[in-house]
């Protein structure tokens, strides 16, 4: 039994060979296994042509009864990508040796590779009856149940596989299941155990770092991503994630240095160009930022984050028509994000379309529940339109959100935003003061009231201009932080290769001008 277990860890042909001679050493059939050693030798040397020749010869001599030759031929077919032929040969092996679990495992594996997961689970269950302590069967059953969307069964099988033998693949599969179910905490637990078991696996480290990044635990995320980059300095996903964290902290030059490595290896990566663009934005090189973001948008036209960033940069450059275009496109792809509507409203305000700007703000306030900047900008717009009561209501709503954020997170607010809020508060209170002093009827007090009224009137136009400018300015400034956050969210798009790649190329028709005939 120990010998059988030891055989399980070696290569499949070796394990098969170690079993077959023992069970078939009866002197009645020596001819059947005469060339097995040569087939095995060619196979492990990857000399597939010679291996096929020997297999053909052997099968002719034995009239197709040499199970090992058929088995190896099936393995070679699989390596060449001919899964269907491989499946047929493995089924022949299963007919020749009905009690051998390896043949059933290979049949199930072929069915799995062909995408027939239900049939694969049935065959794996048959194989499990023959060999109950095989971690591979449990693991592969878990994978098949994952494809069939039966996540509970999949988890049970994968946990059984882990109890029998621990492997990275099983941990990765379990983590994927939890992610598919949206259970981030359990996924992190699984990946933690996986990292303890296999500390040098860069894929596990990167995935764990990305998960911590999504939860906002930056310290641990940075640790794990740093470890991943220590073992694999050119890891594409880890570099993007680490770079986005550096962007969040304002280290744009360091992030750009890191991105240079990826730019040489993968020049057509939309998340890369998006992050590079936001680095330039952070360094206030807006034209370079626009170039990089446009390239990212060219390569990934369906990504709303890139369009969001393009709109933000164009707002900063005061190109409001272009900003409106990009933000409108982003809203088409992501219609449930309040910040997009807020930025759209800022663009519309500067395009002097107040009615549509108001509608956009209403939508932004309806969708967004935690961003005080939305209410602040809306209040500024209302104040500039002379609607003090509505502005005051929005201001109070903003104060609620600010207090909520102060209680829940140590996030520090942008100084421009604070200043803008204070100015707006002062302007609104002056209005209140005016209302408060009206009932007094004393002649001496009347004079003071007049004086106060003049002061308020003087403040209003000045505040109006400053308020308008600073509303846009504070929106842009606050976007610096949020743009870092957007950069931080970009580690999700590194999964972009898994999505079907849209046609990135724009086929401009060639300009077909008739050639003039040359005269000699």
């Amino acid at each position, binding site marked *: 039994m120990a010998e059988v277990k030891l055989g399980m860890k070696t290569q499949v042909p070796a394990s098969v060979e170690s079993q077959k001679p023992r069970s078939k050493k009866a002197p009645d059939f020596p001819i059947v296994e005469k060339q097995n050693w040569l087939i095995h030798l060619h196979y492990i040397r990857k000399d597939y042509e010679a291996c096929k020749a020997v297999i053909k010869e052997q099968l002719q001599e034995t009239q197709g009864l040499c199970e090992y030759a058929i088995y190896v031929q099936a393995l070679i077919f699989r390596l060449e990508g001919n899964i269907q032929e491989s499946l047929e040969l493995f089924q022949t092996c299963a007919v020749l040796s009905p009690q051998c679990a390896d043949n059933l495992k290979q049949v199930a594996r072929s069915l799995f590779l062909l995408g027939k997961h239900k049939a694969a689970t049935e065959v794996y269950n048959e194989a499990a009856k023959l060999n109950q302590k095989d971690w591979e069967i449990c693991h592969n059953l878990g994978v098949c149940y994952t494809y069939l969307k039966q996540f509970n069964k999949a988890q049970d099988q994968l946990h059984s596989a882990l109890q029998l033998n621990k492997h990275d693949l099983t941990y990765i599969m379990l983590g994927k299941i939890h992610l598919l179910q949206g259970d981030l905490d359990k996924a992190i637990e699984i990946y933690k155990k996986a990292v303890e078991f296999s500390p040098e696996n860069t894929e596990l480290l990167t995935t764990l770092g990305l998960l911590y990044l999504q939860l906002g635990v930056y310290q641990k995320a940075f640790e794990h991503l740093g470890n991943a980059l220590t073992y694999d300095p050119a890891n594409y996903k880890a570099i993007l994630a680490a770079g986005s964290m550096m962007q969040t902290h304002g280290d744009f030059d360091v992030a750009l240095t890191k991105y240079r490595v990826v730019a040489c290896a993968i020049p057509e990566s939309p998340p890369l160009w998006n992050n590079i663009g936001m680095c330039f934005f952070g360094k206030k090189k807006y034209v370079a930022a626009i170039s990089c973001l446009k390239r990212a948008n060219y390569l990934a036209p369906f990504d709303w984050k890139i369009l969001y960033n393009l709109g933000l940069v164009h707002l900063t450059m005061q190109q409001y028509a272009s900003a409106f275009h990009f933000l409108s496109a982003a*809203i088409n792809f992501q219609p449930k994000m309040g910040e997009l509507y807020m930025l759209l409203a800022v663009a519309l305000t500067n395009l002097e379309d107040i009615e549509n700007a108001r509608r956009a703000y209403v939508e932004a306030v309806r969708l967004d529940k935690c961003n005080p900047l939305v209410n602040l900008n809306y209040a500024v717009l209302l104040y500039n339109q002379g609607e003090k009561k509505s502005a005051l209501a929005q201001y109070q709503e903003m104060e609620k959100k600010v207090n909520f954020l102060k209680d829940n997170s140590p996030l520090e607010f942008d100084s421009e935003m604070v200043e803008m809020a204070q100015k707006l508060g002062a302007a609104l209170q002056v209005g209140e003061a005016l209302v408060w002093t009206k009932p007094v009827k004393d002649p001496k007090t009347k004079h003071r009231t007049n004086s106060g009224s003049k002061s308020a009137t003087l403040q209003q136009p000045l505040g109006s201009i400053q308020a308008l400018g600073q509303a846009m300015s504070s929106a842009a400034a606050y976007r610096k932080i949020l743009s870092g956050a957007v950069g931080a969210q970009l580690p999700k798009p590194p999964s972009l290769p898994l999505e079907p790649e849209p046609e990135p190329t724009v*086929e401009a028709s060639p*300009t077909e001008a008739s050639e003039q005939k040359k005269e000699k």
Partner: protein
Amino acid sequence: MGSEMEPLLRAWSYFRRRKFQLCADLCTQMLEKSPYDQEPAPDLPVSQAAWILKARALTEMVYIDEIDVDQEGIAEMILDENAIAQVPRPGTSLKLPGTNQTGGPTQAVRPITQAGRPITGFLRPSTQSGRPGTMEQAIRTPRTAYTARPITSSSGRFVRLGTASMLTSPDGPFINLSRLNLTKYSQKPKLAKALFEYILHHENDVKMALDLASLSTEYSQYKDWWWKVQIGKCYYRLGMYREAEKQFKSALKQQEMVDTFLYLAKVYIILDQPVTALNLFKQGLDKFPGEVTLLCGIARIYEEMNNSSSAAEYYKEVLKQDNTHVEAIACIGSNHFYSDQPEVALRFYRRLLQMGVYNCQLFNNLGLCCFYAQQYDMTLTSFERALSLAENEEEAADVWYNLGHIAVGIGDTNLAHQCFRLALVHNNHHAEAYNNLAVLEMRKGHVEQARALLQTASSLAPHMYEPHFNFATVSDKIGDLQRSYVAAQKSEVAFPEHVDTQHLIKQLKQHFAML
């Protein structure tokens, strides 16, 4: 009688104004008065002049300048024995365009045609052809700008042109070739040259033309470069390229002419020696500095070798010499568009518009440049104009396809869907539209429809990596790893540097290698 104009003078006037039929008719009248109507009388100069003029007029009716018309048929390509190196080194052949990607954007940014070359700004017959590996691929690739059918052989085209001569003379052919005494004419250089051009272009009898030219050059003791060029042209027409090369080289030693350089370069291109052709052009530029046709020849060869940056440089040189060169403007504009500079490309296309180029392709390109340069007011107007100017279904399909990209750019997926559908209505073989429709279906979650569309796109355009990669990704997602692997391998063949494809193949091989 004194008030009438001299008939010969009137015939010359018709000839110079390119009214060749009137010129030929008038010469016929003059020759009818001569007792020798089948050959000019030796003692009558007016008769000889009329005879020569008629021959030249008939030739000009069907004349084709062969410098730029170079359409290889399937027979010439498949049975090509002229290329010397069967496995040429990279950068020295036009056969392997895929491995010579230097200086330009990759396939992910600039799409390629069936022949494996990046899309160019100017459509020429020779740029459509590559060296297809299989007969199916050769038949699938259209060869000319005006038809979707391949040319079976280039010699067939010349045979058809000769049928026009039967209609010009109701009294029979002007010259009865079978009864012609070539030796006698070869000793009269003025008559011989006109007769040669008549035989070669009007009668399409290459062999007889070659005989006349050989006798004439022999009579002139091999000192007339013109006859050597004509012999070279005959050899080229007959497919004897090495002999043609000798004749052109000998002519160049005696007298360097731009046309001779161009003809010799054509021979080298047929022999698949682009580097030699480039050296020849540069040698010609030493003699004729700033010659536009030579500069343009260099730019074309660099473009066919996929060296976009060098081609763009030489096109700029062309524009310095001749700033109304349509081909150079279009190629440079297209280069700028695919190098993330739509604003600069827009200026080039606007220049073409000012020059009077007014066709569907130009407005299509203007619309794309306006959109990507964020000049939104002109975009839809340009596309409307392009649609109204489309001359056939393929052009309309291309315009709708590009409109689909505009719709994707503004986030209107419904409009994009309709545009791609309309592209398929106009051209049911538009592989790019199939691919993009599949992507839109995937975004809606319609996996089976997306797979069917991707399979159609893959079969229609094996040279595009996008349908193969998308199909591989979708198959991998639903677990069909065999089809995913096969499709990923095709994607790798089409675009070897695609990192996502390499990653996917590695992943699939791990699946196959482990139990």
